[in-house]
């Protein structure tokens, strides 16, 4: 054996495992499987389905998204930024009497406060969503699998990434096999 390996110099590049991809045929199967993976304590894993499966958040043990807090912070920033801007420019820096109103008058700044709140909230929501999802991203190892193409059609997948602390080539395989997937493959990447 060892001789052969010496004769054939090792493959040009070594492959390292990046994730297990388990395929299921029904949403029910993937749902119960997800609960098991959740209970096994994995953190870096995902479920891929062609359509939203109700209750999957709970089955995966996902906590509430942090996006709301980002949006709130952005909204409050926009609101106070608008108020501060108008107060400073109209009331302090360059007071102008417009329409017989005091140089700084609160009611006329409300529309701007409203608009900037909406604007920055929208920025926060879109950019925050992209950031939390680690997007944009041009590739993901799941696409090495040709079976994964059916993930947008009629198959349901669970992927468990090797970067998970609990990931173990054998233990994770045993766990995933116990969920009786219709197909299980180890996806490797050239390192």
């Amino acid at each position, binding site marked *: 054996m060892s001789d052969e390996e010496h004769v054939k110099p090792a493959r040009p590049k070594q492959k390292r495992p990046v994730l297990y991809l388990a395929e299921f045929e029904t949403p029910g199967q993937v749902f119960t499987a997800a609960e098991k993976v959740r209970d096994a304590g994995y953190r870096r894993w995902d479920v891929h389905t062609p359509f*939203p499966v*109700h*209750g999957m958040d709970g089955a995966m043990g996902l906590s*509430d998204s942090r996006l*709301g807090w980002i949006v*709130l912070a952005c909204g409050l920033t926009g609101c106070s930024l608008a108020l501060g801007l108008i107060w400073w420019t109209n009331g302090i820096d360059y007071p102008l009497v417009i*329409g*017989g*109103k005091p140089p700084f008058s609160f*009611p*006329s700044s*409300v*529309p701007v406060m409203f608009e900037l709140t909406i604007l920055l909230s929208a920025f926060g929501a879109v950019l925050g969503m992209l950031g939390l999802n680690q997007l944009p991203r041009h590739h993901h190892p799941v696409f090495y699998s040709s079976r994964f193409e059916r993930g947008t059609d009629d198959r349901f997948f669970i992927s468990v990434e090797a970067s998970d602390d609990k990931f173990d080539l054998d233990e994770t395989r045993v766990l995933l096999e116990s969920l009786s997937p219709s197909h299980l493959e180890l996806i490797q990447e050239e390192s």
Partner: protein
Amino acid sequence: MASETKSEKKAAPERYRIPREAAWANAWKLAAGMGVVGLALAGVAWSGDPHRFAFSWLFAFMTVLAIALGCLFFVIIQHMAGASWSVSWRRVPEIFASGLPVFALLFLPIAFSVDELYPWMEHQGQHDAHEQATEQEGGEHASGESILGASTALAQEHGEAAEGEGHAVGGHEHTPQHAQHAETIEAKVAFLNPGFFYGRALLYFAVWALLSWFFVSRSTSQDTKRDFETTKSMQSWAPLSTFAFALTLTFAAFDWMMSLEPAWYSTIFGVQYFSVAAVSSLATIIAVTYALKNAGILGEAVQTEHYHDLGKLMFGFLVFWAYISFSQFMLIWYASIPEETTYYHMRWNGGWQTFTLALALGHFIFPFFFLMSRNIKRRVSLLAFGAAWLLVMHVLECFWLVMPYANEGGGLELHWMDVASVLAVGGCYLAVVFFRMTQLPLIPVGDPRLQRSLRHEVV
């Protein structure tokens, strides 16, 4: 508890009825008692001070009417959207909307108090003899009989009377606009006259009674028929009904509330009353389903998922209310045209300033931040607290809309008649609603989409 209600859900549909021994079965008696006490007090009030009573009654009437109309709106809009998520809670607003015909009776005190309430009554038949008429009115004002709420009434005043009373409205000066206001009102007499006013009121009540009868009777007949045809017919009538609803609500708000100050106008006033109706009715739906669910009557038909979405709707319409209210204020504030600013002058002077600011804080700022979080909307007891809070604010909002016209000075003044009127109107209406509740299944058990609604989930 959970397992118990689960079995109820699977049990026969009769389980969604209020059991004979439940407290809810007697709720209508309590409401009726409130109504009787309120009506008795209202009788005393009417004979004692018919002027103040008329305003108290109008305030109470518009407060409770908003809830009933908002419920009708949500029934119609669910059919128009073909919504299935809302099926399990739709019966509650249906029952609240079915009480709408009661308001035709409750309108009688207003119909008999038109002279007390509406300044435009003084302008009837004055097209030809304007000068003569204003003299007569001057006399009436001096005797303290007529209504002064707005600059509109001042519009016909001459000399000292105008100065004296103008001061009471907050030092607002009217002198240049007097003649113009009188003319403005007289130009509106073709619309604002008793005959047309009563005719329109009849039309509104007819339309509301028809709409509530149609949608509620179809829905209840579906309880036994269990067919999809009924759903389709409600769906096909929903768009036209929405038009009828929008027009009647808008003009009712113009007629009964905005014409309290006939020289003043705001094209968004009808929308403003609609937003009041939407917020208060959603708050009512949330509070009542919460109470029914706590009593174990609704089983698991209305779940956290439904409350979450109802909460979102309530939050959305709360923002809508603030948006509309502020838009109206800002346009008037910015233009600063005297005949428009009177509306806010009256609500800023004579003790109203604190009230107005408290309303802005209590009806918007606090509930906005309170209801914003998903976690609050999904903790149903906290959501129910928000709903109850908004109902209290709703009463204050209607008070704010009507009562500045109640006394001659326009000052803020709480009167026992206000409470009595709310008791009377609310009691009579709720007695009918709660009685209907004892007779019907509390969810539309025959709606083909009920199962989908029961499995509703916020994704």
